[in-house]
C-alpha cells in the first residue's frame, strides 16, 4: 500500500513528466510543419479534447454565459497551445478563478455580438514574462 503523501508526489511527478514530453513533442511538430501552418494546427493536443467536448456538448446546451472575451474555454485552448500543457493548465485554473469577478471591473470592455464583455486575452496575462 502506497502511503498518501507519496501518492500525491508520484502523481505530480508523472504529470510533470508527461508535460515535458508533450511540450517537446509539440515544438517538434511545429518545427516539422512550419512551412504549412494549417497542418501544424491540426496536430491537436489531446489535453484539449475535454475542453472541446465541453464546448461542443455542455456549452451548447448550457449556453454561452462567460462574461469574458475570449471565453474561458477559448482562453484555455489558447493558453494550452501557446504555453504547453503545464503552464496552460495553471493559466486555465487561474482564469477560472478570476472569471466574472474583479476582472470585469478592471479589464477594458469590448462589445461582441451586441454583448458587453471584459477583454482578457492570454497576452494580457503573460505579458510580464512572455514576449
Amino acid at each position, binding site marked *: 500500500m502506497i502511503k498518501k503523501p507519496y501518492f500525491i508526489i508520484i502523481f505530480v511527478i508523472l504529470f510533470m513528466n508527461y508535460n515535458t514530453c508533450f511540450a517537446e513533442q509539440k515544438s517538434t511538430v511545429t518545427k516539422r510543419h512550419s512551412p504549412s501552418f494549417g497542418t501544424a494546427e491540426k496536430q491537436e493536443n489531446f489535453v484539449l479534447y475535454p475542453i472541446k467536448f465541453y464546448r461542443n456538448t455542455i456549452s451548447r446546451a448550457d449556453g454561452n454565459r462567460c462574461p469574458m472575451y475570449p471565453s474561458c474555454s477559448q482562453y484555455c485552448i489558447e493558453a494550452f497551445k501557446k504555453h504547453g500543457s503545464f503552464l496552460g493548465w495553471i493559466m486555465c485554473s*487561474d*482564469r477560472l478563478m478570476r472569471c466574472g469577478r474583479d476582472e470585469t471591473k478592471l479589464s477594458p470592455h469590448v462589445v461582441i455580438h451586441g454583448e458587453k464583455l471584459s477583454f482578457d486575452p492570454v497576452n494580457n496575462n503573460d505579458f*510580464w514574462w512572455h514576449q
Partner: protein
Amino acid sequence: MHIRTTCLAYQFLTFFNIFFLFISFSQSVAGSDPEPDIKSSIIISPDKQFDFAEDCFSNKDYLTAVGEYKRFIYFFPGDERVETAMYRIGMSYYLGRHFKKAGDSFNAVIDRYVDTDLSIKSYFMISEAHVKLNAFGLAIINLNNLITLTHDEDVKDEAYYRLGWIYIETSSWEKARLYFSKISAKNKTKYRLERLSTELNKEKSIPKKDPGLAGFLSIMPGAGYFYCERYQDALIAFLLNGGLICAAYESFDDNNNALGGVIAFVEFGFYAGNIYGAVTSAHKYNRKQTGQFIEKLKNNTKINLFADVKNKGICLAFEFMF
C-alpha cells in the same frame, strides 16, 4: 474561257469599288470624331492634379489622396511640389493608420532629399510611426540618427524632447530626464521643461505592488489576490483551494486514494493558478497605475509637435487639464 475572264474582271472591279467606297466613308466618319473629342477632353495641369490630391487629403480620404499624389509624381516628376507630394503620401498613410507604409514613405523622402524641412519632418514622423507600432527601439535609433546628422539646434532639441517622451512611454524615467536635460537653454521655456520635470518627479509616488510579495503571500490561497486589491478573487481562491485541499485530505483519510489523487491533481492546478494569478495581478496593477500616470502627464504637460497639413511650419499646441 473569255466569258470567265470577263466575269472575274467585273467581280474584281465591283470589289475594288466597294472597298474604296468603304475607305472613304470610314475616313469621313473618323474625320468627324477628333474635333468633339478634343473639345470634351480635360487636360490635367500639375496645379489641378495637386489640388485634387490636396482636396482628398483635407477631406480625410487618405487612400484616394495617396493614389492622386502618386499620379502627380508620376506625370509631373519635374514639379517642385514632388517632395511635398511624397511627404503627403507618408502623412496620408500615417493618418489612415497604415503606420508601416507611412514609415516606408517617409524613408523615401529622406532617401531622396537631404536636409530639407520636409526631410527633417519625415525623420520625426518615422519615429512617430514606430511608436505607434510599439517599436520604441527603432524610434529611438531614428531620432539619434537625426541628432547625429543635423546641425540645427532647434531640430536637435525637438529630437531630444521626442526621445524623452518615448522613454516616458517605456517607463524609463531616468533616461527621459537625461534627454530632457539635453535640451538647450533657449528652448527650455518653449517645451515647458520646468513644469514637466516637476510632474515627472511624481513618478516616485505611483502606487505599486510587489509581484514577488504577491506570489509569496499566495502560499495562503487568496492572500496574493487580496494584496492586489482583488477581494472577490481572493475569496474565491481561498474557498476553492481550501475546499479542494479538505476534499483531498478526506479522500485519502477514507482510503479513497484514487479519488484523493484526482482531487489533488485538480487542486495542484488551482493552487499554482492562485500563485500565478496573484503575480500577474501585481504586474497588471503596476501597468495600469503607470499607464494612468503617463496619460495624466501627457494631458498636463505634453506639447503637441505635429507637422501641419498645409505645410506652414510646425504647429505648437499646449493643453492643460485643471
